[in-house]
């Protein structure tokens, strides 16, 4: 006992030093994990954004001046785009057999349909300055289908014809597609939709305890879609 009292100051100082070093170590570890998580989610965001851009740039390909190259995106009550159906054409030059059993003869045209479906996955609770907030996460399912074009029209695929073509990501916290007219205004008219404005945000696969702090990476793009600048009707007459 006397020995403890003799070295009380040393013990207190030693304990303080050990606690300080442990706290520093914990902070360092936490910071490292956060960096890795952020880097991972950023990489995923960029790859997913690249997939979306590829799809958007293909919209209306080989459809000429036909402006009916996608359907109006369907938005749910949370502001997310839950459905988006768009298409392009492909003319067969050498015996074309498409997945789903659709066969197109040489010289015939196939309509390539692509559909995005936003499927809810987990719910996460986040601490915000206004209190805990629940956020619905979602996965984007991408499906494709092919139908034959007859007299420049093609039927919509039946549900059975849609096939999953996975370019997917499972931790979307927000996904929205809007049509913009040539003045940058949001429009609901497919006819007037000259630009597609896509926004989404992605969260990491896991949340950092104990703060439960979420890093939400936001990505957006605005792209001019086909037909690019079509000649006016007076020029073609």
């Amino acid at each position, binding site marked *: 006992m006397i020995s403890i009292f003799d070295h009380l100051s040393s013990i207190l100082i030693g304990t303080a030093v050990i606690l300080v070093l442990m706290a*520093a170590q914990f902070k360092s570890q936490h910071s490292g994990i956060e960096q890795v998580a952020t880097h991972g989610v950023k990489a995923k965001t960029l790859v997913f954004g690249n997939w979306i851009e590829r799809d958007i740039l293909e919209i209306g390909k080989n459809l000429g001046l036909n402006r009916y190259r996608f359907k109006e995106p369907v938005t749910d009550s949370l502001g997310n785009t839950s459905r988006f159906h768009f298409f392009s054409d492909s003319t067969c030059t050498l015996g074309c057999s498409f997945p789903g059993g659709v066969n197109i003869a040489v010289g015939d045209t196939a309509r390539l349909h692509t559909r995005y479906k936003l499927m809810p996955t987990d719910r996460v609770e986040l601490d915000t300055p206004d209190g805990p907030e629940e956020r619905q996460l979602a996965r984007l399912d991408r499906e494709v289908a092919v139908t034959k074009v007859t007299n420049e029209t093609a039927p919509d695929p039946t549900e059975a014809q849609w096939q999953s073509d996975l370019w997917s990501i499972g931790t979307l916290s927000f996904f929205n597609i809007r049509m913009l007219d040539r003045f940058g205004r949001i429009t609901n008219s497919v006819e007037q939709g000259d630009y597609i404005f896509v926004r989404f945000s992605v969260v990491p696969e896991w949340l950092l305890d104990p703060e439960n702090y979420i890093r939400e990476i936001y990505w957006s*793009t605005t792209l001019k879609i086909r037909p690019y600048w079509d000649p006016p009707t007076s*020029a073609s007459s």
Partner: protein
Amino acid sequence: MPQSLLGLLALTLASLISFNQQRVTQQSYKATIRDELELAASGTAQHVMEMIAARSFDEVSTPTKVFDAGGVPRGAGLFTNGNNAEFGRYSRTGDCDLMTPGNTPRCDDVDDMDGTRGAPVKAILSDGRELRFTADVDVQYVTDPGGETTTNSPTLHKRVDVTIDSQHPAAPVQGIIAVSRVISYDPIKADMDAEMECGPIGLEGGPCDNSSTIPSQ
């Protein structure tokens, strides 16, 4: 006495390590936020650039001028000179809405916003949240689509430089992202724009027809 000194030294060392660790964490945190802002700013810059390219190439190729002239300009001869006061005439803040051109219809051609400084732009996040940025825009004629050689004389190509600055308190960065694009004159686009806004050229009584409406005696 020596024990106390050693204890003090240990405490000092531990404090220094802790302080250093805190500084590194702060730096890493700021770098992470900057990364996120960069990604959001790049989408905003792309949007701004697309909306600039959506405008008419020059004042003389705007729908009204095309309608009045009875046709689209055939060549660069009539385009606004780079030294002319008309070049960049709507560069004051608020003159040109960089996100939604339809809100500022007077700012209708690419060079109108030359010299714009600190124009507000934003990335719209989920739940109505926003990340606010400011944008600077510079427009110059270039001799070729490669955009290397600038000139004041009118050509068929204009290089647009958009620089986005972050105003975020955690990472205020000047020039967080800079994008450049050469926009070339496209007579088909000018023709299409004119017809969409004014109807076919020569149409009397159309929305752009400024001729007298008083019937001739």
